[in-house]
C-alpha cells in the first residue's frame, strides 16, 4: 500500500482482556517500529524489527506486551491482561533506511475500561 496501515483504528477493551493490534508497513520496508503515545505526551519507543528479527524490545513495559513479525512484513502487537495504564495510542512506523525520518501509521487508540 501507499502508507502504513494500522487496524483497528479504535479498540475498547475490558480490563483483563487480551488485545492484538495489527500493522501493515509500506511494502519492502525492512525496518518496523512500535511506539506508545499516552495522552499529552510524545511517542515512546516499544520495539524494533529488522525484517522478521526483533532486534530491540527494550521499550516493552512488561511481559504482558509481545510483538511479532513472522514473515518480515505484517506485525502484530499483543497485550495480555490489559490494564487501565495501557490506554494509549499505539503507533507503528516503517522505513527502508537505517536512520532518518520514517513513515508512521495513523495509530490504534486503545481504551481499557
Amino acid at each position, binding site marked *: 500500500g501507499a502508507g502504513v496501515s494500522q487496524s483497528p483504528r479504535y479498540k475498547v477493551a475490558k480490563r483483563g482482556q487480551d488485545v492484538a493490534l495489527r500493522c501493515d508497513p509500506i511494502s519492502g520496508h525492512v525496518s518496523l517500529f512500535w511506539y506508545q503515545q499516552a495522552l499529552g505526551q510524545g511517542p515512546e519507543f516499544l520495539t*524494533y524489527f529488522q525484517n522478521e528479527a526483533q532486534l530491540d524490545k527494550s521499550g516493552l513495559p512488561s511481559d504482558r506486551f509481545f510483538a511479532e513479525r513472522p514473515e518480515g512484513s505484517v506485525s502484530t502487537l499483543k497485550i495480555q491482561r490489559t490494564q487501565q495504564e495501557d490506554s494509549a495510542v499505539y503507533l507503528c512506523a516503517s522505513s527502508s533506511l537505517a536512520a532518518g525520518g520514517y513513515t508512521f501509521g495513523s495509530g490504534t487508540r486503545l481504551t481499557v475500561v
Partner: protein
Amino acid sequence: DQQVKQNSPSLSVQEGRISILNCDYTNSMFDYFLWYKKYPAEGPTFLISISSIKDKNEDGRFTVFLNKSAKHLSLHIVPSQPGDSAVYFCAASAKNAGGTSYGKLTFGQGTILTVHP
C-alpha cells in the same frame, strides 16, 4: 528521565510571522535530530532533520538550527501559515555501542502550534 524536552506546551502566532519551536536534550550521544508534525487522529509526519555535524538545515519555509554546546535545537517556520497549525514533536536518535543507528527515536512532549489568520 526526559532526555528530550519541549518546554513550551503551546505557541500562538499570527499568519505571516515567524514561528520558533524549541527543544532541549540531555543525552550527549544523540547525533541525529528530527522534527515531526502531527494533526489530530493522524500519525506524526516527518518534517525536517539535522545531523550533529551540521548546525543548520533548511527546507523551504522550515529551518532547523542545532547548538550542540547548549544541547538545544529549534525549528523556524517562515512565514507561518494557518495550515501549519498542528502538534510539533522534536525527536533524537543515537548510535548504539556498535557505532550504528537503526533509527530508534526519543521524542519530546510536543508543542501545539496555532497560526491565526
